[in-house]
């Protein structure tokens, strides 16, 4: 990872948009852990349903909570879930890809078939499977997206890993005495990193969507946790009377997901020049909430 890919990423409008928004969300999450304009959980019946105005920039909800503060605090949950899901997806994806590319033939092919089967499981169904035994929590979202996308990462990374492993320079490295493990860390992983990081960025976008959808359904965050999905569910009950307040959390989710998707697109173009002129393939796997 040299700064060269970063400057290439910055050079495209989409990459720039992705980077900036993701940075803003991350900083917001950080800031919200010690400061928000108002306490996101403190209700004040006298201030209920204030329209967007100073000092409640996005207005207030049915119990007079400040919507901007709720959204800022929700960023924390979004970052937590997307990073958590990213870690799980990385571990599962890389292990499955390595098992599917670098082992004995029968193991390799069994793993490949297994991955093909698992990919048909939509993330939401995995989440419901887990939460029917664990009950709802943010960990359910993390595990469900992590497993779902881990399989997806494995499917994309496996052929790439195999291609690199059979390339001449890896063969030469092996002949010159590198152990399989050294060749894995020195040659194989760095060479599949671009493919993998792009997938990771997309899986974090799915994690944000999944958190909102699952929390809305009651399988994600609990009602006292700050979450964009919970906020959507809260505001939806008053949609007939106060239709506009529901715009803010939805817009926040859309912009965040869009930024992560564009960051993935930009990273792909920046890290792999051969892809630049190839038509984009469909990257979204079994879609989520």
């Amino acid at each position: 990872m040299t700064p060269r890919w970063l400057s290439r990423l910055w050079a495209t409008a989409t990459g720039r948009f992705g980077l900036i928004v993701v940075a803003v969300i991350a900083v917001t999450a950080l800031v919200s852990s010690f400061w928000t304009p108002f306490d996101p959980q403190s209700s004040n019946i006298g201030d209920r349903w204030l329209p967007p105005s100073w000092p409640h920039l996005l207005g207030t909800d049915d119990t007079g909570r400040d919507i901007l503060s709720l959204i800022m605090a929700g960023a924390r949950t979004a970052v937590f879930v997307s990073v958590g899901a990213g870690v799980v997806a990385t571990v599962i994806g890389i292990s499955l890809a390595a098992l599917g590319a670098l082992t004995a033939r029968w193991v390799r092919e069994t793993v490949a078939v297994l991955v093909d089967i698992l990919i048909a499981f939509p993330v939401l169904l995995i989440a419901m499977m887990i939460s029917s035994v664990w009950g709802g929590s943010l960990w359910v979202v993390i595990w469900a997206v992590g497993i779902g996308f881990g399989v997806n990462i494995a499917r994309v990374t496996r052929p790439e890993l195999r291609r690199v492993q059979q390339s001449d320079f890896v063969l030469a490295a092996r002949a010159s005495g590198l152990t399989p493990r050294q060749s894995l860390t020195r040659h194989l992983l760095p060479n599949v990193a671009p493919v993998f990081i792009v997938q990771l960025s997309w899986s974090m976008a799915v994690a944000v969507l999944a958190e909102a959808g699952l929390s809305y359904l009651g399988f994600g965050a609990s009602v006292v946790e700050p979450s964009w999905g919970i906020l959507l569910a809260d505001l939806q009950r008053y949609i007939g009377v106060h239709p506009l307040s529901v715009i803010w959390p939805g817009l926040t989710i859309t912009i965040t997901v869009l930024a992560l998707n564009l960051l993935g697109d930009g990273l792909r173009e920046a890290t792999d020049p051969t892809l630049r002129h190839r038509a984009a393939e469909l990257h979204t796997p079994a879609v989520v909430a």
Partner: protein
Amino acid sequence: MLRYALVRGALLIAGLLVSSVLIFLTLRVFPGDVAQLIAGTQASPAEVDALRESLGLNRPLLTQYTDWIGGIVRGDLGTSLLSGASVGEELFLKAQVTVPLGIMALLIAILIAVPFGILAALLRGRRGGTALSVGAQTLAAVPVVWAGMMLIVVFSVWLGWLPPQGFPRTGWSTPGRAIEALLLPALTIGIVEGAMLMRFVRSATLQAAGQDFVRTAAAKGLTRTRALIQHGIPAVGLSIITVLGLQVAGIIVGSVVIEQLFTLPGIGRMLVADVGTRDLIKVQSELLVLTGFVLVIGFLVDLLHRAIDPRQREAA
């Protein structure tokens, strides 16, 4: 073709088996005591034990699994742990909402994706094409549930054209009202799915535009656009079929959330309720039916693709 169908069929069977084992094990092996949950916190350990016995949760895992699968093979999806009602009958009832909803959503998605996707490809590099791509990219990032809320705000709250929620008690005996109730939900799923499909149609069209046969047609005197429409679009249609399985999975997932938002009595809402009450037998059968459906669609799509794509046939 037959050989391919057999191999692909074997993979389908393997997929169904692996799914059933995974669903079963996840629901049994993970911590969480269903009997305790049903009996409530007031129950004595002896009562919980008796309940566990009567629910058959004390039997060896393998027996429980083979009983469940054996039943399914015979067409018996089991009975609810809580109400004792037949899962199969309820699924059949709820499917009368979910299946029409899914078909309507799929049609809307295709009606959006195909014309706009092709248009976006034709206008590539021009302002209109960029606007279409940005629009699709943004719509694909919208959470389905929020899209539904915004449509409710516009079409029910502001315009008052369509009912915001619910499904007529009379069901399909009043087809007009039933379709009216499904229109907004189907539109919601259709728009979001359509935006994803549109990006695929766009890149498939662009790919087709670069093909030799389109270039040849252009060289022998057709305009570029005409060449693309006459010779490229059939190839695009073919590649759309390959993502149909993905679309179906997306629509199933979308319907789970959307049935909740619009309070439709469909399979998705039933599944959400059953996960909430931890009705294990129902949940495992419903999950298997849904994943099985996705797997079967994938199988059919692969066969169809094979049957109509001459290149695939020759490769065999």
